[in-house]
């Protein structure tokens, strides 16, 4: 039954020969989850020139529009993955195809857009499961470099870049696990977190001093690293800082206040102990995967999963992310784990769409509302349900053909044909 529905939906596309772009497109749906407002049942989404013009609650079809019938299906905004390595990594163990971690502790001049690979086989897979916009970020060392914001559709890199330098990625070191010694029998690793924080602070302060003096007219010999950090103040570039302990979080908030940084906290494993401070600081949180375990027994087995609900209750804006490129398509099911611990579906959906878009400065992504870019995902059920299939994906009003490796391999195996 479900396959039949998928088949029908695809047939509609092929037959209609949709190009989108400059045409008027009308998508009939059983339920439109606008995110910006309430869900609208039995609606029609009107798309003109790649943007949503309006969402009509009745079945009023404007004349001259190409109609696509997804009755009974759900329409969601395209998902935004605010921290991933799509396009930067391939097979995890193969170093030759991996451009995520550059050598060196402080390399802010590294820009992910110079290494982004648009023809990676993982991008179509992520797209076909509903992710339409992603921030591809480097991850090595303490200051990794600048991440690139991409739309997951296009041939050459320039087609896909929404913003070439979208955020500065900073990672504080993580304390070694207390009980690791028992398993491996090695000596416990030293705790370098304090030194890490100190180094990061000194680096930012040095960069700020240099920027100020350059602004005041002094000249220096070139230093691309420190100059790269200056974008934090010239363009208010978001700084995505991975923080883990309570000390890390407090350090980050204090640093942001003193140096006027546009800070976004990432991971924030211990955030539930400092919710008030995070809320008062006004910073947002990008969560690491819900497919993670608690590090120490004392934290409790559901330490990671109960955090999103608490952030929502405290009024802190947050977003889900999925760093691994190969499984980045699994973002909605990964996020669904938070629903079991008190997070509402509304808030969870927001954390997959509007919240990450806003955090990264995208004003017209993340909702199905007038003026927003027409990035839509059509499913046959609740997007958080692991049994749901994605029927269609629109990026800027163009429908995406489902031609990823996943589809191709399944087709070949069904016919036992090596070259389908």
């Amino acid at each position, binding site marked *: 039954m479900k396959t039949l529905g998928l088949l029908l939906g695809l047939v509609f596309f092929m037959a209609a020969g949709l190009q989108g772009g400059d045409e008027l497109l009308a998508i009939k749906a059983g339920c439109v989850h606008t995110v910006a407002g309430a869900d609208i049942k039995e609606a029609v989404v009107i798309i003109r020139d790649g943007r949503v013009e309006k969402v009509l609650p009745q079945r009023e079809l404007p004349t001259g529009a190409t109609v696509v019938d997804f009755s009974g299906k759900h329409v969601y905004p395209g998902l935004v993955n605010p921290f991933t390595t799509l396009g930067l990594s391939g097979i995890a163990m193969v170093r030759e195809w991996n451009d995520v971690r550059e050598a060196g502790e402080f390399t802010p001049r590294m820009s992910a857009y110079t290494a982004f690979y648009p023809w990676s086989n993982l991008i179509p897979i992520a797209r076909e499961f509903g992710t339409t916009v992603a921030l591809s970020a480097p991850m090595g060392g303490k200051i990794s470099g600048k991440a690139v914001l991409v739309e997951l559709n296009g041939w050459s890199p320039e087609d896909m870049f929404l913003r070439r330098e979208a955020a500065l990625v900073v990672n504080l070191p993580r304390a070694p696990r207390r*009980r690791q*010694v*028992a*398993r491996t029998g090695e000596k416990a690793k030293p705790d370098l977190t304090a030194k890490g924080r100190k180094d990061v602070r000194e680096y930012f302060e040095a960069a700020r001093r240099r920027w100020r003096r350059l602004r005041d007219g002094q000249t220096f010999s070139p230093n691309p690293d420190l100059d790269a950090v200056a974008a934090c103040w010239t363009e208010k570039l978001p700084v995505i800082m991975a923080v883990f302990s309570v000390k890390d979080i407090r350090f980050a908030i204090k640093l942001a206040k003193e140096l006027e940084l546009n800070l976004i906290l990432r991971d924030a494993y211990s955030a539930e102990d400092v919710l008030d401070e995070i809320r008062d600081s006004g910073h947002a949180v990008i969560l690491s995967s819900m497919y993670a375990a608690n590090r*120490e*027994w*004392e934290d409790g087995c559901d330490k990671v999963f109960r955090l999103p609900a608490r952030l929502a209750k405290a009024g802190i804006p947050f977003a889900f992310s999925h760093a691994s490129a190969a499984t980045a398509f699994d973002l909605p099911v990964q996020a669904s784990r938070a629903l079991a611990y008190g997070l509402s579906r509304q808030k969870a959906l927001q954390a997959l769409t509007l919240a990450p878009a806003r955090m990264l400065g995208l004003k017209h992504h993340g909702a199905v509302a007038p003026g927003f870019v027409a990035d839509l995902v059509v499913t046959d059920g609740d997007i958080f349900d692991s049994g749901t299939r994605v029927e269609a994906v629109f990026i800027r009003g163009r429908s995406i053909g489902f031609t990823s490796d996943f589809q191709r391999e399944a087709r070949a195996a069904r016919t036992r044909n090596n070259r389908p």
Partner: protein
Amino acid sequence: MKRTFLALLAAVWLLLPCATDLTADIVLIKNVSVFQPEGNYLRDARIVVDGRKIRWVGQGQEPSGLCFDKVIDGGGGFVYPGLIDAFSSGWQKKSVDEKAAPKPHDKEVRKSRAERGITPLARSVEHLKLSQGEIRKAARAGFTVVHVVPGGGTCSGTSAVLSLTGTTAADTVLVADVFMLLRLNRNRRDYPTTLSSVLYEWLQLQEDARFHRDMAKAQFRDIRLRRRYAPDLERLDEYFRAGRGWMIPVDNLVEHRLAGKWMRKSRQTAVLVAGPEVWRSPVKPGENLVLRLDFSPDPVSRYAQLGEKLAGKAKKEVYPRELAAFLLDHPRTCLAPADAGDFKSLLKNLRRLKKNGVSEARLINALTRMPAALLGVDDYVGAVAPGRLASFFVTDKPFLEEKSRILRTFIEGREYDFSVEDKSSKPPAANLTGAWKVTVTSRMGVFELQLTLEQEGNRLSGRFSSAMGTMDIDEGRMSGTEVSLTASAPIGGQDTVLAFSAQWADGRMKGTVSMGTFGEAMFTAVPEGQDNNGQAEEAI
């Protein structure tokens, strides 16, 4: 001057036969309470020590007709048999760790048994390294006998029982080749690298040893079928056929279970040396066991892994309580200190066990009589009784009471006196670290030595050196301006303790050195490079 000192040594050498008679002292120790294995004390008792052995123990008057060389007033103290360290990896030369560059390991070729850590022919007696300082430290804690086990691989060799009388093997070894050690040590690169492989290695060794024996009986005309002689398999076969004589250290539940599985499958009996997790394993009440007393949960134990609070609670309450109950249910369990040389924590742990209901008699017996029986030396040690070796120690209060102190320790008649030690000493007046030139003046003449000292707080350490060799300083102490050093030198085959005591003033030291039975001499020490202004003192 050197010649005169050589003459002195020659004289000593000649006089040696007479000197040996001096050690066969008859000593009377009176006014003590002697611990009895049943748990009571023999009050107002006296002990007669004849040379190395105990001649008589009893209350009231000692037998008449004895001429005592020395009479010691025990001062109302308590006498206990010398403690036995039933499992010690120390007292041996450390084997050199190979830090070779890692080669790609060839998985098709198996290295020889010896290279993989199976060395049943190794013997602890052949690798002993004893020093007077270590002996003194053990004596201070009341230990007079140690069971030395070889460290190493899966089958590391045979152990030995030592009585800490001297620094040479000839003096100290009571019994050589007591137990054959099997260790659950995994190799890094060679077979076996998992615990289960160690088990199968042992089982396969049993089969190989049996086959080796069978092949010796067979007579083959074809010379290619005759077996190749393997002495290590032959030795192992002796133990396998006897079915016992094994000792296996186990640290946690998994290892304990594995050892039990081996014993069942191979039909052998082994003495397990277990850690604090033993109370969680099923152990039959009649089983021989040595328990290393340490209340910290093993790092892989659930108690250690599930939070600091739980680990702390286990260490303070759960383990002492459960191990006390374990000791009461398992009467054939001996106790041993946790680590080689860590004696202080042993006393603390014993006291905790006593608080949890184990009787003093049981605890002392677990460190004396029962290990002696286990090691087969209960004719020599393990009790203060006539005929046994004179190895015991005297405390001012019952040993397991708080703040008890060991006043004296006797190891086979040789006395170590700790009663005059002043625990609270004054802070040192100067730092004596560096090189010194020592001039010893005696009846025989003047002799020069070099002295290198390192100072840490009150303690001094270092060595004397001369053209003849070096002597390590066993104990050194500086309290205020008083300096005292002891070193031991084997003069004429016997360990003689040289005790230096001096006063420090204006950068130099001046004092006396006593050379045991050879009398005293004067000495001065100046920092290296300085001129020795003052002439040597006049000889006394």
